[in-house]
């Protein structure tokens, strides 16, 4: 996959998306060294201050520094996104590899299950799960992850179906490789580009889903600041303190834009076949 990425410096979407994602990851990981103070420390004397040099994003109704809260929110949103993606990719990759390689009944069963998962509107299913098990962050990332398996499985399955017919897989079989080795050492690495694209796109979706559910009060619980809860808390002050909603929302939109652009760019660069420009076998090996 390195050959494709070397083209990245000429790809606008890759540069912009990559820079945005990198910025948010750095802020989320190293936020505590920015000297913004405690995101939970209240100070009624400095309540609802507009953005200024001392408080770049202003303060909330109980005097908490919004910049510190947005940074803490970035950590939470990205963490929920990352964990839910790992769950979704693990489940989806497993199901996709098995369905694509073995075919037959197992394939039929798994794909009908995927159809059924996708037949349910996603946001609604999340609300239902959270309603049943009670709102918490662990419920949320598990639900996001478990419900996210179906699209991953479908994409992986179709890729395995085309890879399976390639000579090097026949060669591996002829050499007497075990199935497990073929699946994990020969097929899985060939799918890595696709997995990166799915990961990046999925991060965008997970950040929006986490934000939406937290906004509805079904995700992160106060006083934990996530971007969704910040927007929810600030909504009541839209008239008097618009920065409380506009700034966290802008951060969220930029993060989502970054992951979307990066995903698009990775698809163009790593997997040209999916971008509409055919390569000899449709895949990079």
């Amino acid at each position, binding site marked *: 996959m390195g050959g494709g990425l070397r083209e990245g410096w000429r790809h606008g979407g890759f540069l912009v998306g990559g820079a945005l994602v990198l910025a948010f990851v750095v802020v989320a990981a190293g936020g505590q060294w920015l000297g913004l103070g405690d995101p939970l420390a209240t100070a009624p004397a400095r309540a609802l201050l507009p953005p200024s040099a001392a408080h770049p994003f202003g303060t909330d109704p109980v005097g908490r520094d919004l910049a510190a809260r947005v940074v803490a929110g970035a950590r939470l949103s990205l963490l929920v996104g990352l964990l839910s993606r790992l769950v979704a990719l693990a489940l989806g990759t497993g199901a996709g590899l098995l369905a694509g390689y073995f075919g037959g009944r197992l394939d039929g069963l798994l794909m*009908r299950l995927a159809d059924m998962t996708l*037949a*349910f*509107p996603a946001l609604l299913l999340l609300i239902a799960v959270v309603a049943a098990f009670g709102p918490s962050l662990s419920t949320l990332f598990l639900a996001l992850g478990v419900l996210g398996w179906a699209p991953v499985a479908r994409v992986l399955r179709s890729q395995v179906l085309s890879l399976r017919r390639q000579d090097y897989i026949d060669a591996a079989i002829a050499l007497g490789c075990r199935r497990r080795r073929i699946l994990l050492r020969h097929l899985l690495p060939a799918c890595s580009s696709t997995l990166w694209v799915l990961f990046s796109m999925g991060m965008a979706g997970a950040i*929006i889903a986490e934000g939406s559910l937290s906004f509805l009060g079904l995700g992160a619980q106060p006083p934990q600041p996530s971007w969704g809860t910040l*927007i929810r808390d600030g909504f009541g002050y839209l*008239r008097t303190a*618009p920065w409380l*909603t506009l700034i966290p929302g802008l951060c969220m939109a930029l993060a989502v834009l970054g992951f*979307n652009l990066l995903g698009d760019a990775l698809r163009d660069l790593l997997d040209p076949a999916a971008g509409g420009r055919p390569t000899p076998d449709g895949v990079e090996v």
Partner: protein
Amino acid sequence: MRRFLLRRLLALVPVLLGVTFLSFLLLYVVPGDPVQAVAGERYDEAVLAELRAELHLDDPLPLRYGRFLADLVRGDLGVSYVSREPVRDAIATTFPHTLRLALAAMLIAVLLGVGLGVAAALKPGSPLDRSAMVLASAGISVPVFWLGMVLIYAFSLKLRWLPPSGYGEGSLRHLILPALTLGAASAALIARMTRAALLDAMGQDYIRTARAKGLHPARVLLVHGLRNALLPVVTVVGNDFGSYLSGSVLTERIFAWPGLGRYTLDAVAKRDLPAIQGAILVMALAFVLVNLLVDLSYAWIDPRTRREGS
């Protein structure tokens, strides 16, 4: 066409069973005793046992699912724990509001999306094209609920053009901002698809023929090009419309819109399980049925998709 229809309807059966079973399971897996939720604070063991028998909670799972299905077929969605009124009645009053919002959102999405897409495709690479596509990229990434707040801030609080929330007894002024909020993401997607499909269509031989005949360029673009570029747009419209009927939860919350989404959220907040179950079931069914209609209309427009395996 008839065989295709039959096959699609048959494929619907397991999906419908799955959807109803999942909704049913929701009540079943919930931690805690639903009987206590019904009985409220003042209960004793005798009352609980009586209620449990009345609600058939002691029966085995398959039997309860069967009864749930039988009730469902008769249009019985149970009684709300909170209001003690049939869930069906509440859904019958809220669903039309959601439908109205969804239709308005789709209208805005198509007008804005096709308009922007055509404008962009007129001169590919021009500043107009570039700004339209940047706008479209942004529209796909902006969280719905945040967009709604930005619109309220700009058009209600600052400019004071439109009311910030409420149904307003069905006034058009109250409909504009929620519909724009809900439709923005589809508008962005439609704009991208229209542009791509139109540019693709304009490279075809029949367009060259139309130009060679000396037709007016606008006529070539709009009649010959756009008509053939609209197929992908139809798919977006169909897919998104299905999710509007369920996905308007956020928009309804922000604009205090008295639809099914807000009803669901209220029910979730009060842990009113029959209401949650009924609302989710109705929205999921609407989603599945709209998707079926989209598939059928697609097959009707483009016969090639009727083949097996597509």
